[in-house]
């Protein structure tokens, strides 16, 4: 295992990663956490919806039927099913999502976006786009934005728990 030290103090190092790798990953994670926190704050204060709620509504709105199985939602966000259930409960209480049975499966529950859900999503999306423009796109040249997206496309997507 390689160990790097600077001024007598161990530098943030991971056993299997070099300094540049560490820094890049750290920047990637930090920028992601910061952007999500900024989006989350903006969406909650303007629309009373968390970022997670908006992402789930967007995923539902994007699907052909406006609905998805709860299990698939949990998998799409790599989250415990209970987290998704909690969120859908809250969205249902606000009238933004409905629950129904899957036509083919007796015990399969679908979450379906309502008309009001779509309307709320539309206005939240405007805020969302403004935050993305200001904090992401305006920081990058067009070439950099393309390269960043391309590099991200290569990163491993969540696989099923090993």
């Amino acid at each position, binding site marked *: 295992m390689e160990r790097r030290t600077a001024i007598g103090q161990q530098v943030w190092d991971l056993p299997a990663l070099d300094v540049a790798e560490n820094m890049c990953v750290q920047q990637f994670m930090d920028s992601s956490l910061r952007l999500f926190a900024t989006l989350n704050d903006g969406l909650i204060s303007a629309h009373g919806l968390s970022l997670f709620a908006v992402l789930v509504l967007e995923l539902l709105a994007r699907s052909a039927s406006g609905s998805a199985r709860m299990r698939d939602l949990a998998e799409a966000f*790599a989250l415990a099913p209970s987290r998704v259930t909690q969120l859908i409960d809250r969205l249902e209480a606000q009238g933004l999502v409905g629950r129904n049975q899957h036509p083919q499966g007796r015990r399969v529950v679908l979450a379906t976006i309502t008309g009001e859900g779509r309307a709320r999503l539309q206005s939240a999306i405007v805020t969302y786009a403004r935050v993305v423009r200001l904090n992401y796109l305006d920081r990058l040249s067009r070439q950099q934005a393309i390269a960043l997206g391309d590099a991200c496309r290569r990163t491993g997507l969540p696989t099923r728990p090993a």
Partner: protein
Amino acid sequence: MEESAVELPAIRLPGLDDIEQMSWQQFVVSSTGVLATLNRNLMVRHRLDLNEFRLLDFLARSVTGSARMGELAEELMLLRSRVTWMTCRLEARGLIRRARIPGDGRGVRAEITPEGRMRVGEAVKTYAQQVRRLYVNQMSRQQMLALGASCQRINASLESAELQARPTQS
């Protein structure tokens, strides 16, 4: 539902062209995937979530092995109340100690324990292994460096915005 295909969302982000939209969408899918996978692996193997890991790791790397609540909140980009709650839980597990700062009525420091150092030392291996699998091994060095540089620009502007929002914090 398709597992890994990155698709343009049907609901467009107003004001973004196709290329901008694609770049952002890929960033979101990738970073949420990477963060969630890291989180899950740390939980399963070490019973630490990603934030707990980052907190312990930050303490382990600091010269004194300790930090104030405010510093931790800033480093982890979390609310102070969340950090307070996390440090209480980690203290109950014997991984850190909380202590009042002498001469500062409300100040509290968190200090990592030997047990905490051991746990984070193991978790860091899982973290590195996963980062390599998900991220470093997936692209060329040039691409990785460019990605890091772009993310740094995004960070720098968000950081300065945060500082402006909190001018009084010392």
